């Protein structure tokens, strides 16, 4: 009897231990996912933003990177953010702390437009 109790208690401890590890693992994975979700990238190429529209969570940092062979800028239509001129391979980042819709365009080539939707 005692042995089975002992074994049972061992099992329970093991399960609890495992459960604890799983729980820790879950929270580890979750925080890694959160870190991934808190940044997003928009590529600038061929006179366009790609993707043209992105949806991100509040607190996300969006990074624009210019892969075109001509300089561009990233300017919010509502004057929320404004990059300096980005030559090829230069980047601009902005962290969105408030939910909303943020249309933007390239001030050098105003036909280039994009949008960040923050939820």
């Amino acid at each position, binding site marked *: 009897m005692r042995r089975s109790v002992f074994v049972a208690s061992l099992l329970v401890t093991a399960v609890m231990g495992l459960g604890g590890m799983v729980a820790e693992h879950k929270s580890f994975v979750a925080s890694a996912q959160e870190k991934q979700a808190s940044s997003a990238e928009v590529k600038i190429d*061929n*006179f*366009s933003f790609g993707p043209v529209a992105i949806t991100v969570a509040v607190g996300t940092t969006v990074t624009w990177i210019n892969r*075109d*062979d*001509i*300089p561009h*800028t990233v300017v919010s*239509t509502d004057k929320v953010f404004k990059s*300096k*001129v980005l*030559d*090829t391979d230069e980047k601009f980042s902005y962290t969105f702390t408030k939910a909303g819709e943020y*249309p*933007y*365009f390239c*001030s*050098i*080539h*105003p*036909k280039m*437009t994009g949008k960040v939707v923050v939820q």
Partner: protein
Amino acid sequence: MRMHWRDVSPGERKMANRPKDEILHDHNNDGIDRRGFLKCMAWAGTGAFCVMQGGVLKSYSMSRLSEMNPADMKGELSFVQISDSHMGFNKPANPDVAATLQAAVGKINALSTPPEFMLHTGDISHLSKPEEFDTVEQILKSASAKDVFYVPGEHDVLNDDGKQYHERFGKGAQPGGWYSFEKKGVHFVGLANVMNLKAGGLGTLGQDQLEWLEDDVKHLKSSTPIVVFAHIPLWTVYPEWGWGTEDSAQALAYLKKFGSVTVLNGHIHQIMQKVEGNVTFHTACSTAFPQPKPGEAPSPGPMKVPAEQLRSVLGITDVNYVQGKHALAVVDSTLA
């Protein structure tokens, strides 16, 4: 320089050798030979000299220029338009834009009639950097024409809302960068249509500039020849690529009374011409890199051509005015 006969089709060669060079098809009875002009435009790539004299279009092939009566070609006023030097650009389409600008200066210095001054229709620099502006000014110092009149391109007003451009080139201009001046009875107007560009929009002149323009030309006699120069074309070349100015119609309305209006633009890095009533529109080549024709590429970026062809798609524009003639003679020539 000289036309290369091997590059000319037999039909064009035949046309060029015609003894009678005047084309006289005046269907609209307004003195403008549109069909002749279109033929002339087709020659522009191989070197045609088109002159509007007394409302009649005359065209001559560049290879026969040496035979021409210099009086037909010379004027009381001669100037050159260069554009889009993009100093600082260094990608494959042209790794050495300083060399091609220098070649353009060489071309200017070789003109038989030395120009009195130059117009630079913008995108002087590529990234609005001080050293880029410095280099252009330095290179242009070696041109035979010592005075240069600039208007800004969108590449010249980055980062600082045009402050640096204005300090360097805007002396005597209105705060927004527009201005006018007279040379030998011709009234020149420099316009700035690259400030305050709106999302999804085209070039823009703005209310202040339009009001200034109206006032500036109000008291001029309608016989005064007008030259307007601005970076982005003042007619709608291709809206999908932003090649147009949204409020230019208003500006052109103020110029309606004049018998001769020449509009010189840049921005699109290729030669395009259009005649509408008394207004001749002309866009110049870049001295840095060519761009594709409207719609012929997914985007209006620098167009790569084989290295040996580069100089044949870059160029300068020579303009001659003969007093009493209807319009200015506008002649494009490439760097090759």
